[in-house]
């Protein structure tokens, strides 16, 4: 199921997004892409080139874009909103709430450039809390894919699922960890690695770093049970409880605030169903800044080493 992570092929989720949606538009003729003047960043420009009649420029006006998508959904289209996660979630939060989530309309919101790595743009462009906001929204499905192969399946699942969905994307190339045998199922978490000393639960591209952490820990003789949670909502609670029960210690890992995101969802689930000692790895409730990727990951505590260190600390308790 898993390719080796060393020398893994790299793919940028934004490119996979643009290409896959262009392909899917042949199969699902109701697909439209609405762009908030960022197509050459989000790579919706690939779609604009290949499906010009299905590409709707909406200008720098995220609120209106969200509402227009809602209107298009009422007449049977599958509108995909494309902008940065920071703006998709925050600039049109009330529109998502009132004309998308409340009526349950079939709008797909893709949040590009999510998390820490946004090409040096800095804190205004880094979405540290988008998962928390979208997860707290009733009726919203929240999906955070880990790599290109998973994203391809997520986009297809989005077309088949009737209802509002938030899909979190990233900018920079990241390793491909899933091979052809991998099958994404909306609402299901997936065991990436089995082990009995400590459980790591991760989402998005952070799963790649969690996997690297697992490999490090295994070299130290620590068996890691790694659960990847691509669907944050609806949450696969049973898989989370099972994974926690497996080792009795849980580290969560996400490129997102430790408040209210995956770490929050896991804490809520375990607190009610299977109290387990845990440690959250993610942004420590802070805003970000500009800088090269490596320096940012190091400063904000998101490297594989940070995930591994959290596991060691939990084991030492």
């Amino acid at each position, binding site marked *: 199921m898993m390719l080796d992570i060393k020398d893994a092929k790299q793919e940028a989720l934004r490119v996979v997004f643009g290409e896959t949606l262009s392909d899917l538009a042949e199969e699902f003729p109701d697909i439209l892409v609405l762009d908030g003047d960022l197509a050459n960043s989000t790579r919706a420009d690939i779609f604009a080139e290949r499906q010009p009649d299905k590409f709707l420029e909406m200008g720098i006006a995220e*609120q209106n874009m969200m509402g*227009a998508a809602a209107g298009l959904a009422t007449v049977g289209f599958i509108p995909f909103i494309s902008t940065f996660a920071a703006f998709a979630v925050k600039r049109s939060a009330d529109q998502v709430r009132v004309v998308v989530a409340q009526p349950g309309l079939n709008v797909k919101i893709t949040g590009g450039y999510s998390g820490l790595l946004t090409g040096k743009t800095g804190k205004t462009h880094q979405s540290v809390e988008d998962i928390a906001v979208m997860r707290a929204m009733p009726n919203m499905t929240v999906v955070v894919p880990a790599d290109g192969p998973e994203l391809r399946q997520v986009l297809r699942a989005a077309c088949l699922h009737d209802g509002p969905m938030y899909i979190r994307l990233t900018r920079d190339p990241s390793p491909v960890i899933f091979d052809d045998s991998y099958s994404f199922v909306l609402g299901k978490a997936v065991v990436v690695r089995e082990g009995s000393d400590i459980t790591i639960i991760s989402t998005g591209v952070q799963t790649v770093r969690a996997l690297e952490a697992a490999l490090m820990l295994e070299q130290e003789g620590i068996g890691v049970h790694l659960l990847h949670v691509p669907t944050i909502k609806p949450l696969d609670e049973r898989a989370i409880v099972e994974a926690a029960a497996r080792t009795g210690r849980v580290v969560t890992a996400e490129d997102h605030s430790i408040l209210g995101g995956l770490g929050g969802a896991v804490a809520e689930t375990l607190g009610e169903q299977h109290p387990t000692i845990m440690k959250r790895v993610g942004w420590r409730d802070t805003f970000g800044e500009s800088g090269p990727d490596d320096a940012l990951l190091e400063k904000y505590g998101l490297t594989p080493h940070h995930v591994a260190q959290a596991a060691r600390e939990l084991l030492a308790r």
Partner: protein
Amino acid sequence: MNVKDHIAQGKSGQTGQLPIDELTRLAAQVRADCVRAVFQAQGGHLGGPLSCADLLVALYFDVLSIRPDEPNWPERDRFIISKGHSAIGLYSTLAARGYFERQELLTFDAIDSRLQGHPDMTRLPGIDMSSGSLGQGLSPGIGMALGARLRGKSWHTWVLLGDGECQEGQIWEAAFVAARYKLDNLTAILDFNRLQQYGWPGANGERTPPWDPDPAAMEARWRAFGWHTVSVDGHNMAAILDAYRQALAHRGHPTIIVASTIKGKGVSFMSGAYEWHAKVPTAAELEQALSELGQTQNGIDDDAGH
């Protein structure tokens, strides 16, 4: 021919041209039903619904191509009440038009009701878009109008805006985008009553209109954003119908109809009084309101009046 026959005849589209005085009578009934429902619910808005009653009746009885017995008819014209707090005005119009029994208006604001305080498309067939958070209605209208164009369909999309609501930036985002796509299958109707909720206090604590009260200034604003504009007296039924036809006929731009209205229109003590934006009448006020509206009885009775 009475209204019911008209409606029966117009099943698959418009009602046919009802006489103006019949439309006027229906508008009075709609206003009365608003007051009755708010009294019954002991909650809700009145100034705004009364302000736009003529605009709604003219639209639903003379212009929209709709099927009250098939509210989700795919080819129907679309209507969005962006000033969602005027929901009871829309509900009363829908009931008059045959979407549901007028008696149901008395469930307004009650728990489990289809008639929510603000329109909820998941509850009541006939509501094309949920609203209640101001400034949001024109954008879904763009989606519906673009959708018609993309599908080669002929439905027309109508959006009712409040003037206070036009302070929301989203309205101007939508104004720009609608014009840029030259959506001439989209019409906005502005209920230009020059009041909002609390309002802009003047030097002596009085309410001052949010915008320059001159409709020409409002037209200039929309024209600057690329819209075709029409000004009209929003309580003159014939003039309203004429404005609607102008909007339908215009090509190349979306049209906005700037309808000068009086908030609380039809009830003397509510007219022009910002306090009646959302206020429940006493029993005595209810009675006076109904009598001013020429209603013979206090309750809602489907057979009354026609």
